[in-house]
């Protein structure tokens, strides 16, 4: 019988499978960090985890509560600083980064600054932090988020961090280096981006979810390829490691 799991567990397991051994990943707190830790304990033991505040390749003893708390450089190979991490991204040595935000559009542009007019915001959020830097400078960025219409919008109220900007050629024209959004992992599906238009495209549907459901929770039209995969549910081994070794206190997986 297939093991039971919640949506947060599914998202973390799916995200972890995209992190290849021997690559570098810049992570934040929460689900992205759990995905990186799980990947290290599954098939990517040499995945290098980086934190924007300066932690390089820590042996994470627990889930950090801040990207600058002491667990982010516990038994690390180096305790550096912001410039060291961001220049590593700028010269092309960071493969993956995880981002988050209040809004995302079809080209993977992200808003984490405000809802409403910028000068008189209805809601003020933190802003870029290191997100714009990662989105501009890392090779492949990923987002893990709840899938809802208020988040997947036709137009972001404010573009905090770049995806493909206006689509094909957008980054190049603006002057950004090659890179951009790679996968969007939600509680309904995994989405990628069309090679030519760089518009968001459904790649695989989670168990029990159909295209109509995903489209109804999305504020713009998603590209639907002729054949859509089914998301591989978490394996017993993934779930055991995630629950027993990565997040035993259920700080992240308990949030589902």
């Amino acid at each position, binding site marked *: 019988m297939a093991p039971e799991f919640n949506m947060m567990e599914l998202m973390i397991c799916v995200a972890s499978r995209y992190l290849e051994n021997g690559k570098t990943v810049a992570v934040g*707190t929460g689900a992205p960090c759990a995905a990186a830790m799980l990947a290290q304990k599954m098939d990517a033991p040499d995945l290098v985890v980086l934190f924007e505040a300066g932690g390089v390749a820590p042996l994470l003893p627990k889930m950090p509560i*801040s990207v600058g708390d002491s667990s982010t450089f516990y038994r690390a190979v180096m305790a550096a600083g912001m410039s060291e991490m961001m220049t590593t991204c*700028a010269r092309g040595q960071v493969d993956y980064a995880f981002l988050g935000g209040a809004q995302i559009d079809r080209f993977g542009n992200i808003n984490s600054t405000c809802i409403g007019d910028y000068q008189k915001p209805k809601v*003020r959020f933190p802003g870029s932090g290191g997100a714009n830097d990662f989105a501009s400078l890392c090779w492949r960025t990923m987002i893990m988020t709840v899938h809802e219409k208020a988040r997947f919008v036709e137009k972001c109220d404010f573009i905090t961090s770049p995806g493909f900007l206006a689509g094909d050629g957008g*980054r190049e024209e603006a002057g950004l280096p090659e890179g951009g959004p790679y996968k969007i992992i939600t509680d309904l599906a995994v989405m990628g981006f069309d090679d030519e238009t760089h518009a968001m495209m459904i790649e695989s549907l989670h168990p029990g979810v159909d295209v109509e459901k995903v489209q109804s929770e999305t504020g713009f039209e998603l590209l639907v390829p002729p054949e859509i995969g089914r998301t591989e549910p978490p394996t017993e081994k993934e779930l055991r490691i995630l629950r027993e070794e990565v997040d035993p206190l259920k700080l992240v997986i308990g949030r589902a």
Partner: protein
Amino acid sequence: MKVLEEGVGPLFMDPDPDKARAFFREKSRAMVDKRMTVKQAVEEFVHDGDYLAIGGFGANRIPNAIVHEIVRQRRKDLGFLGHTSTHDFQVLCAGKVFSRLDSAYIVGLEARGLSRNARRYMESGEVQVTEWSNYALAARLKAAAEGVSFGLIRCMIGTDTFKMSAGKVVECPFTGKKFLAVPALWPDVSAIHVHEADMYGNSVIRGISVADLELARASKRLIITTERLVHNSVIRDDPTITSIPFYLVDAVVEVPYGSYPGNMPYLYFSDEEHLAQWLKVEKDPEEFEKFVDHYVYGVPDFQEYLVRCGGLKRIEELQRLENVVDGRDGA
């Protein structure tokens, strides 16, 4: 160098390196005893209207005694560098001490949630804001530390973060590619919390340095708070680990547990219960006012704040948490 596009955000500080050099020419290089109290340091070095920066990373290795004292002394109209500021930002918003803000990360406390009171302040329209990214602000400090008028980075371009910044997209004279020029930033005054310092200001930071090496070198005036005051011979025994040399420093204050309720690497973990209390009580402005009176305005100094938060008993619990490594008992 050709300017291709300009952000529309206000530029709060003059990026002229020669004005900064003129200031630093007059700054004392004397290796003298700079010890003083938190109260004296803020009275002497933080003035209304100054541009302020705080070291550390939000709720990690922050000079919280100085942050509280700035609020207690009711400083007004400060400029503030909102780089990776979280709990420090929350405390400064409680006192409404700043009215100009260079912002990269504000309002939030990372995984803990958003500060309602900081949001109210930012949504009130009382604060003039210019947007940046964390790296952009580190690059602005780095340029200042290097004595040049701008830094070059390759992010923010193409976004609204750029549009609302005071950066300029320029064309590289060698490759024709586009880069973002960010203006050097010399804060009037900064405070950084360190593990060890001698009475002259020679300081040691253990663990990640965040942007503090650049910040220390960019700041016109620098207040160091230290967990432990050490003899100059301790610094001289191992000069390879000195993070900040004395001639950058104006004041040295010994403040044990000075990052509380923030984390201090290798010494004590953050007090998540107390931080959660801040976030909770902010929901009701009246209750929050009483809370701030009790913990900030109503105490003579940071030591009394620590006592009201549980004193040594609580600190000892946080020391144990910091030293737990298997993750099963941690916060």
